[in-house]
């Protein structure tokens, strides 16, 4: 036997209240009464009635307004309004308020019971539909959660998600295995307590202070992971870990290769040069022999220079050029100009050097910057005419960048050649005869600038000279 539905009658004392009670009782419903706002709220809270039948006015208040208030707390409660008379306004207000319907005199007991039954049936159907939808949505969410779990725990990269207090919210199998931590026991613990690896602690400490994002995690068994720290708004942060052991091994192999090649190329060159000098010291040479030996030594010097350029390029492109210091480019430029002073004087060139005051520092490899300046200024010196040759060097700063401009009034570079000027072994078509060069100088300049996250470009016109521009990011000290 089913439990009878409880109908809450929120009505002022009236003949309709008595009629309603009798009608509903006869139809097998239980009833409860509320005669004011407090009573209505109390019974709804305590008894969870199946339907509310409320008067158009209750204890001087609007029945619709009271219903709207209660529907905020009980959104699935069917509400039937008893109106004194039918009107378009009432119908509109009831629709807007989201009530189930309304009844109005003249009413017989059957009318009241039928209206209540209709509202309850509709509410039941709605309830069934909502429950079905909730079930389907829950199942779909559960499938997504299962998929997420499967992905999260099977990806090879380690993932650790932390809340704002750096407690572990999520930790996948790969991260657990990497650090030797049981995944289940780590949840909710501060990461600094759950994972004691010093490299991870260092990443967490420095990522807060210095906005550090990447850090290498070295394990005793030789594995090396790259850890990436990301802040996640409203949640906390994420650390992703990628095993880069094989990349490190490749780095070592490349390093070994460059060192071996460097030694194997330079060693015989040094020997040849030594023996060539020995020949002239161990006995007399006639004019022909001297000329041939001089040619040999000149060629060996050219090969040595070429090999050095190639090895430099190889090192920079392979990413071995990692030395970084805080330097002032104007100091390195001043030193370079001093060193090249002899060549500038010998060619009777006019040189002008301008710089704006208070130039910012760079975080760079000073030796590579020196090499870059050597190559750019060396080119300007080589290609500027002996009569009336002018070189203009300018250093300025703009938008946290340092801008170097080296201009000459040499023969210029054709637009077709400009497109290839930074390629290895490229030499312009209008390079004057007898100007030495391997075609690697500007390729080295570009590699150096690239490795310092800068940009280099050329502006030139035939017979009007050439300007090389280098833009390098200035060094910003971390905020204290």
């Amino acid at each position, binding site marked *: 036997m089913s439990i009878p539905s409880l109908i809450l009658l929120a009505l002022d004392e009236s003949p309709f209240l008595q009629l309603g009670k009798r009608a509903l009782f006869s139809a097998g419903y239980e009833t409860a009464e509320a005669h004011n706002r407090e009573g209505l709220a109390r019974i709804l809270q305590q008894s969870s009635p199946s339907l509310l039948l409320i008067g158009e006015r209750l204890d001087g208040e609007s029945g619709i307004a009271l219903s709207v208030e209660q529907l905020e707390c009980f959104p699935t409660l069917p509400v039937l309004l008893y109106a004194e008379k039918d009107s378009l306004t009432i119908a509109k207000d009831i629709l807007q308020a989201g009530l189930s319907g309304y009844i109005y005199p003249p009413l017989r007991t059957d009318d009241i019971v039928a209206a209540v039954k209709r509202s309850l049936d509709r509410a039941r159907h709605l309830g069934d539909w909502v429950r079905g939808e909730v079930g389907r949505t829950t199942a779909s969410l559960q499938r997504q959660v299962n998929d997420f779990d499967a992905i999260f725990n099977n990806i090879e990269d380690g993932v650790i998600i932390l809340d704002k207090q750096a407690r572990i919210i999520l930790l996948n199998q790969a991260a657990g295995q990497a650090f030797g931590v049981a995944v289940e026991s780590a949840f909710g613990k501060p990461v600094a307590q759950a994972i004691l690896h010093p490299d991870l602690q260092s990443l967490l400490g420095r990522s807060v202070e210095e906005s550090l994002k990447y850090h290498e995690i070295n394990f005793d068994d030789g594995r090396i992971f790259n850890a990436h720290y990301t802040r996640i708004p409203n949640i906390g942060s994420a650390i992703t870990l990628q095993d880069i052991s094989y990349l490190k091994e490749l780095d070592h192999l490349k390093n070994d290769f460059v060192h071996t090649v460097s030694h194997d190329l330079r060693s015989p060159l040094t*020997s040849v040069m030594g023996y060539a000098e020995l020949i002239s010291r161990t006995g007399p040479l006639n004019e022909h*022999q001297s000329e041939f030996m001089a040619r040999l030594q000149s060629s060996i010097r050219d090969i040595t220079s070429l090999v050095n350029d190639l090895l430099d390029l190889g090192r920079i492109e392979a990413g071995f050029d990692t030395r970084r210091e805080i330097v002032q480019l104007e100091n390195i430029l001043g030193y370079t100009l001093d060193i090249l002073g002899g060549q500038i004087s010998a060619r009777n060139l006019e040189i002008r050097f301008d710089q704006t005051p208070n130039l910012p520092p760079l975080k760079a490899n000073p030796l590579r910057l020196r090499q870059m300046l050597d190559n750019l200024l060396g080119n300007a010196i080589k290609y500027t005419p002996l009569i009336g040759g002018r070189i203009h060097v300018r250093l300025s700063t703009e938008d946290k960048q340092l801008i170097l401009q080296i201009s000459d009034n040499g023969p210029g570079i054709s637009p077709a050649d400009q497109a290839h000027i930074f390629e290895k072994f490229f030499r312009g078509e209008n390079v004057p005869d007898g100007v030495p060069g391997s075609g690697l100088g500007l390729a080295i300049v570009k590699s150096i600038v690239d490795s310092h996250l800068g940009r280099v470009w050329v502006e030139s016109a035939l017979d009007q000279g050439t300007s090389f521009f280098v833009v390098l990011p200035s060094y910003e000290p971390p905020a204290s």
Partner: protein
Amino acid sequence: VQAELDGIMYPLGLVKTGKTGALTAEQRQALASAEAAMGRLSAVVKAVSLPGK
């Protein structure tokens, strides 16, 4: 590098064979050593450049 090496092997050969004039035993020995070193260099250049071809 190989082109430069090929370019200097010829004058070196001329001097070594005595076609440009007589040499002492020490000079010949030094030239032979220089030639051997250039041979080693040539072999390294070929070995290094082959993988890239």
